[in-house]
């Protein structure tokens, strides 16, 4: 398989996942797509070195984080949310619950938001998150604790019933 084809195949597989991560960070699907495109372009430049698939994904995530944290166009989800709610969300839960977590994320500093998304969406370990973001594992832990406290404050404590009703329809 040609060099470029190999990259494109990787990009096809990786981009949906990367875009979702980017969306959780910036709350805007268009911006998320831009970020992923930029990140993947940089991945291509390094492609010869990182062609092994699992290394490529980690590299792509790291590059995406760099692009996101550096991007001055970072929007806060609450500003653009009204554009994003589709008219016919057949299986999707009520818009309010999506609004809730994205609003809560918007209240976190970008670094803390990145930690939350990497740990609880991408399911990376503390060490992996530290490697992606270039900080210490201790920093990741303290960021996580702080972020969860803040999220709890914003989201409020839910009863088990309310939670089940919301998410397990």
């Amino acid at each position, binding site marked *: 398989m040609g060099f470029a084809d190999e990259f494109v195949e990787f990009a096809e597989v990786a981009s949906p996942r990367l875009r979702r991560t980017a969306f*959780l960070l910036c709350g805007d699907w268009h911006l998320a797509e831009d970020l992923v495109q930029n990140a993947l*372009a940089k*991945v291509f430049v390094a492609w010869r070195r990182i062609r092994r698939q699992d290394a490529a994904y980690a590299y792509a995530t790291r590059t995406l984080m760099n692009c996101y*944290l550096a991007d*001055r166009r970072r929007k806060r989800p609450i500003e653009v949310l009204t554009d994003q709610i589709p008219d016919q969300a057949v299986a999707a839960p009520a818009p309010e619950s999506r609004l809730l977590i994205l609003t809560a994320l918007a209240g976190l500093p*970008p670094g803390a938001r990145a930690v939350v998304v990497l740990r609880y*969406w991408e399911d990376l370990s503390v060490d992996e998150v530290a490697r992606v973001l*270039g900080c210490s594992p201790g920093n990741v832990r303290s*960021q996580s604790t702080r972020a969860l406290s803040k999220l709890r404050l914003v989201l409020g404590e839910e009863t088990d019933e309310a939670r089940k009703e919301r998410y397990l329809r």
Partner: protein
Amino acid sequence: MNEESIRAMLADAISGEPPLGPVSQHALRAGIRLRRRHRAGTAGSFAVVAGIAVAFPLALHSPGVSPAGPAGRPPAIQERAGSMGRPGDLPRKASFSPDSKIVATADNDGTARLWSAATERQMGNAIRVAGAQIWGVAFSPAGNVLVTADTKGEARFWSVASHRQLGAPIKASGWKLLSVTFSPDGKLLATAGNGGTVRLWNGITRRPVGAPMISRVSTVTEVIFSPDGKLLATSDSDGTVRLWNVATQRQVGQLTNHDNLGLLQATAFSPDGKILAVAAFDLREWSVSSHRQLGRTMHPSEFDTNGVVFTLDGKTLITVSANHLIREWNAATHRAIASVPVAGTTNNFSSLVISPDGKLLATTSYSGPARLWKLAG
């Protein structure tokens, strides 16, 4: 609300995603252009370098601040090529001697080491305490004595020249000591650490002075004297900074940043003693007399601000953070002046100190040895 709920909510939030555009193809085309630009040797955007370096290039994109800075002047900070130590070294803290010629580090292996600031070479052997790890180091104002604070709760005195221990240790605490410092006149020594206790000691006789000063939390991470020696500022593990009158040993003030959900990282008095800069997640200046915040909060980084110092003239603040950023701030207007982009994975900074002569900075990091930086002007 536990982690599982958060996971579920995040998974939820992405439902109803729109179809993906031709991202892969566009990325390929953009990547080819980027690669061409890089090969042509054009600096292009910093993004090109970011794509190539394995290092984390966050520093190169400091939002809103170009290397020249809005003030239009280049950063006053220059990287020095070397480092104090070898790649495996991981000092936690660094401290300058009063003549700015020696740097003491408290290393990850529990020892203290002395380094020549000029040559960056280790001076003599490492200083070890049997059965304990050294966490704090400080020079006496005369510069001939180094005091170490260790995990056994003891403060020990060492000859800077011979590295031999001088006299008996001070049994300062039953708990780990984290911070030790001399008063500017050398007459007092302050210790702090686990157990939430801050104590003063006679610098010569090593006997306790007064009663322990108790914080309401279990750990005091740092204690510093004001430039005139009349106040102490202590950093609690819950994010509170307390000000104490040294003579009466009574608390005279408290700075609580309710927005800061976490750890204090560093504190620094201005040279005139009127301002205390406090670095946590963000950076704030506080009036020492009124205990109120002065001016705007500064945001050096998306991550914790791990170190802050004032320059000698008090006009500039310098900060470091774990995402490879060193930044300068106008101490009066709180505007960012410049950012120093630092490449390399071992420059995720964990602390910062300035030499007494104001010409050098010393940084420690999470992944590498301590480094020195020249300060111009």
